[in-house]
């Protein structure tokens, strides 16, 4: 019988923090600036420049640590990790090796197989590197240091995961926690969250871990799942054919569906860490921790429980709404403004999700305000506009947040509540469509739908369909 193998996975997750400035200098972290326009002597590693820690970085790192059950290191410091690579102008990266800011945490994940804890070994603060662009025309590379010095936290898990479902549940959990804290938008595609997968296999029942490899360049949950399956197979094949797994860093090519060993940055992975003498130690007292603790938000699980108790909306809606901090905030703010929860939820579940999908957008990018959504709901509640007009107005609101009341006024989209005008139109429609009238009178219930449609058309869509129906039946 073939041997049974178990996969052992640990993750190193880098998260770009949502600060306005870099970790050690006052340069902007804004994405998309012209190359090297967000640089200074500090983040380009000029001799004599002095890095100073951004307080917000420390606060975010501690907040993430507290939310993941970590012990916060009261006495921490920064170290230099030395290596030569053109994206790293100092020839060292400022990171934390000896005294990382957080240690020994855990998060609970849920998969089809049930609930389990994944341990967090440590979280440390560090700086990002610049970006290398390869010149296709000339035999050289170009460096943009706008990203150099952008703050990162690296979250190192314990090797507690056993399959891709657990890995994805763990990443989702981290993403939700960090998004709720406002510490990062955690977008894998855009690189604000990056996951490196450390994977080894061993025979079921073995005590020792096998030799692991590290997989990089995983830009989506799908790529992560595929890379895990691929690497598991590759390692088992090696072992089955009597070969050994080599400890190395591999790069995943999601188009090819395979990985290859990366040419190492230097043959020797010897970083010669030592304390950074430019940065003084960080000593955290009880007051500081209490302040961060007091600012912790209501996290997703607590929110879901509260929604179940407070609002009469389906569990499915709760799951989707709380799956994005921005959507949950929007939902709650609209309800506070007086809209009925179910109606708010319907707009989010229906039109909003449809448009997000159509435009390939994230819920975090929704731009309309709770005020305007509440106004739109009030307009439909008061039958000032009908549903099809409301959908049209909503689409414009979704594009560019605008006041639906004003818009409906300006464009004259209000439902005509003039019963006289409606009766007159209905009479005309009946006169113009004798066949449908006859059909209806002969018991063809469907024929009335056509007549409602004709009346709505004659009134340029501004009638209340319920009322049209009622008046038509009266006449017939």
């Amino acid at each position, binding site marked *: 019988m073939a041997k049974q193998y178990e996969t052992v996975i640990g993750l190193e997750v880098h998260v770009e923090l949502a*600060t*306005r*400035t870099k970790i050690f*200098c*006052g*340069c*902007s972290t804004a994405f998309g600036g*012209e*190359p*090297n*326009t*967000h*640089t*200074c*002597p500090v983040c*380009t590693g*000029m001799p004599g420049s002095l890095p*100073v*820690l*951004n*307080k*917000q*970085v*420390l606060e975010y790192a501690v907040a993430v640590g507290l939310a993941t059950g970590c012990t916060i290191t009261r006495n921490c*410091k920064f170290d230099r990790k*030395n290596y*030569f*690579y*053109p994206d790293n102008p100092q020839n060292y990266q400022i990171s934390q090796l000896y005294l990382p800011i957080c240690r020994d945490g855990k998060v609970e994940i849920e998969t089809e197989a049930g609930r389990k804890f994944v341990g967090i070994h440590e979280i440390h603060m560090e700086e990002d590197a610049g970006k*290398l*662009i*390869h*010149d296709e025309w000339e*035999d*050289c*590379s*170009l*460096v*943009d*240091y706008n990203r150099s010095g952008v703050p990162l936290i690296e979250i190192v898990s314990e090797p507690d995961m056993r399959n891709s479902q657990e890995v994805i549940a763990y990443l989702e959990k981290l993403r939700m926690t960090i998004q709720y804290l406002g510490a990062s938008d955690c977008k894998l595609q855009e690189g604000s969250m990056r996951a490196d997968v450390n994977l080894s296999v061993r025979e079921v029942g073995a005590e020792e871990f096998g030799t692991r490899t590290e997989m990089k360049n995983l830009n989506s949950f799908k790529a992560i799942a595929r890379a895990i399956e691929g690497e598991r197979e590759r390692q088992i094949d090696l072992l089955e054919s009597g070969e050994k797994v080599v400890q190395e860093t591999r*790069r995943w090519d999601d188009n090819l569906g395979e990985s290859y060993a*990366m*040419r190492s940055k*230097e*043959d*020797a992975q*010897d970083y*010669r860490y030592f*304390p950074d*003498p430019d*940065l*003084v*130690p*960080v*000593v955290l007292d009880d007051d500081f921790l209490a302040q961060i603790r007091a600012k912790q938000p209501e996290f997703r699980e607590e929110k879901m429980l509260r929604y179940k108790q407070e609002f009469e909306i389906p569990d499915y809606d709760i799951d989707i709404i709380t799956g994005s901090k921005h959507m949950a905030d929007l939902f709650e703010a609209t309800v506070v403004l007086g809209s009925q929860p179910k109606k708010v939820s319907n707009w989010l579940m229906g039109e909003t999700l449809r448009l997000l999908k159509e435009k390939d957008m994230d819920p975090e990018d929704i731009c309309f305000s709770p005020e305007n959504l509440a106004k739109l709901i009030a307009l439909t509640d008061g039958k000032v506009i009908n549903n099809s007009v409301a959908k049209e107005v909503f689409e414009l609101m979704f594009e560019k947040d605008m006041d639906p009341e004003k818009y409906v006024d300006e464009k004259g989209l209000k439902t005509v509540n003039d019963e006289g005008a409606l009766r007159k139109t209905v009479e005309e429609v009946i006169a113009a469509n004798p066949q449908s009238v006859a059909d209806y009178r002969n018991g063809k219930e469907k024929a009335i739908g056509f007549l409602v449609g004709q009346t709505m058309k004659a009134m340029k869509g501004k009638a209340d369909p319920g009322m049209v129906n009622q008046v038509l039946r009266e006449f017939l």
Partner: protein
Amino acid sequence: MANIISDETIEYVGILAKLELSPEEKEQAKKDMGSMLDYIDKLGELDTGGVEPMSHVFPVKNVFREDIVTNGDMREEILKNAPEEKDGMFVVPRTFE
């Protein structure tokens, strides 16, 4: 000299430091490194049991900046440090990931 630096070690340190040393320089560097390590060994004779490791000599802690953008666009100044530039970027030898 108590510490003898091998040829392999000096070769390895040279690679890490990106230094190309001539045979004479290597010999000199081996001697220098050996005497530095001897000096460190001397410090090792002290009894440091119960002494907290120290990473900084100044009694200063918690120096922070607020998260406010204070730097404007200084690309022109920064690029003056580039031996060669193109399209607002530093030109470096072709580098693969």
